[in-house]
């Protein structure tokens, strides 16, 4: 591959073609632009441009009360917004030193792992679509719908969820939510059966393997240097997972393994995501068992007792003076935060999602920075695609799980 020589720009002998892939191209699944220098179908040089949907979240957050920032985090990685929401709540709780009850932790884990599954299933099935296998995408889609229905039962919305509050959830999980969860977890008719079928379609499929093995590989060392985290890093053989390294929300009580790959190519990324979905299913089952073990009054706990930060229920606001006062103070953003700076991270669906929050004691953050995993690992894209075919570049992009919303903040 390296024997190809780039002739100078404007030279009459220039044999390469410049191709603009994006910003709006069906194969990029988002607003990315890549200016590719092609020799035939082989990529000699790739230049990525980002920022087409930048929405200045960090600036907006400097003028918003804590609860108003949650909807901003939705719109980072919108394929798994509950993880972003929870990450933000956990950051606030760390700063405000709020202890959440165990039941809240377990409920959060259920929601976060559902979000991880919904993100991975989209990513993996899109890899299928981009390699010409459309059916897998349609197979799993009904279960994403079911996951969204569970969100809907819990918080009322589906894609940009704004789920939960500082200290817990806005209401207890309904029976319908648990029924839907059971339907999702059912081994015969639920997602496990569908995932097995999905794996049957792809994992040992000769065409799919030929298409993805050796496509867009990266070594563990390069991946670390490029700031990879999440499944993409683990596919390169580095077993770093925030859930294990710095457990949050009681992850230390759960039994799960961290799948790792070896070559860091598209096929390994695909396998790692599939394995992670199995692990997530197992975590959800464990968490659901733990939630069911709460009986009586304990089963009614869905938020921490922090009236100054937890937005009270509407029926209390109408009937109790204290709840009304706190409601007013929180909604008007009149709650002062303690001074401090805190970095908190969660294992997002595509890597370590970090929140760096500086508070000067005011009502809004002095500075809030989102560490967006996509944004950091996307810079490896030119290196991953160089020397490969144009069609490989498309698969590499979808298997990196790039979400435009997260990339551009």
């Amino acid at each position: 591959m390296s024997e190809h020589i780039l002739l100078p720009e404007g030279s009459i002998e220039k044999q390469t073609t410049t191709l603009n892939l994006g910003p709006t191209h069906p194969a990029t699944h988002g607003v990315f632009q890549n200016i590719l220098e092609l020799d035939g179908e082989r990529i000699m040089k790739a230049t990525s441009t980002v920022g087409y949907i930048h929405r200045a979240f960090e600036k907006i957050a400097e003028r918003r009360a804590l609860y108003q920032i949650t909807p901003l985090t939705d719109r980072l990685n919108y394929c798994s917004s509950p993880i972003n929401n929870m990450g933000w709540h956990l950051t606030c709780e760390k700063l405000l030193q709020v202890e959440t009850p165990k039941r809240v932790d377990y409920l959060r884990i259920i929601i976060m792992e559902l979000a991880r599954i919904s993100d991975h299933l989209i990513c993996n099935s899109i890899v299928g679509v981009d390699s010409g296998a459309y059916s897998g995408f349609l197979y799993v889609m009904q279960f994403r719908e079911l996951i969204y229905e569970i969100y809907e039962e819990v918080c009322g919305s589906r894609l940009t969820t704004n789920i939960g509050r500082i200290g817990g959830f806005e209401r207890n999980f309904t029976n319908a939510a648990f029924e839907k969860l059971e339907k999702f977890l059912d081994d015969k008719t639920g997602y496990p059966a569908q995932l097995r079928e999905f794996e049957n379609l792809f994992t040992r499929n000769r065409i799919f393997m030929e298409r993805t093995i050796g496509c867009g590989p990266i070594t563990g060392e390069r991946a670390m240097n490029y700031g990879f985290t999440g499944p993409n890093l683990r596919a390169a053989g580095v077993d770093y997972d925030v859930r294990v390294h710095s457990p949050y929300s009681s992850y230390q009580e759960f039994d799960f393994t961290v799948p790792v790959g070896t070559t860091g190519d598209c096929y390994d990324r695909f396998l790692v995501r599939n394995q992670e979905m199995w692990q997530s299913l197992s975590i959800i089952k464990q968490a659901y068992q733990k939630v069911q073990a709460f009986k009586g009054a304990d089963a009614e706990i869905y938020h921490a007792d922090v009236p100054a930060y937890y937005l009270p229920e509407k029926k209390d606001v109408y009937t109790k003076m204290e709840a009304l006062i706190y409601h007013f103070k929180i909604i008007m953003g009149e709650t002062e935060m303690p001074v401090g700076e805190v970095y908190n991270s969660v294992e997002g669906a595509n890597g370590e999602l970090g929140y760096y929050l500086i508070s000067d004691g005011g009502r809004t953050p002095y500075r809030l920075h989102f560490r967006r995993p996509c944004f950091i690992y996307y810079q490896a894209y030119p290196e991953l695609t160089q020397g490969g075919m144009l069609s490989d570049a498309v698969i590499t992009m979808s298997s990196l799980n790039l979400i435009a919303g997260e990339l551009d903040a």
Partner: protein
Amino acid sequence: MLTNEIIQQKLTDKFGDSLTDWQVPFGMLTFTAPKEINLKVLQFLFDEPELKFNFLTDLQAVHYPDNKGAELAVVYHLHNWVDNIRIRFKVFTDINQPDVYSATALYQSANFMERETYDFYGVNFVGHPNLIRILNVDEMDYFPMRKEFPLEDQTRIDKDDDMFGR
């Protein structure tokens, strides 16, 4: 087992009193380094066999307009995956001459992060291979995350911020 005290001791042995403002907010060791030696500190943390801070988690800037002569802070978050310990260090720079050495030679991941920091705060990373705007339009001639640019139009008179302002 690597602890914050050992890290602090090792850094003080190496760099003496030039590292200041040692704090441990929420368990994360935080300190300030003069901007001239930011690369030396990063390199030392990277190379030292006991420290092994091989992963740059995050890099961003903060603007303190009242901190005359040192208005911009560049904040590095580093992570040692072997001992699983994080540290944070800051370098402060004058906003009129915001030159800070680039960490791109050490960490490839610093490339986009420094471009983003330049884009929003105007920190000039010396030695960066391609220091151009990344998320904002190329034609922009100011650095929008600086505190002198308020989010809302300050000329509006229909909103009384004395009552409900933040």
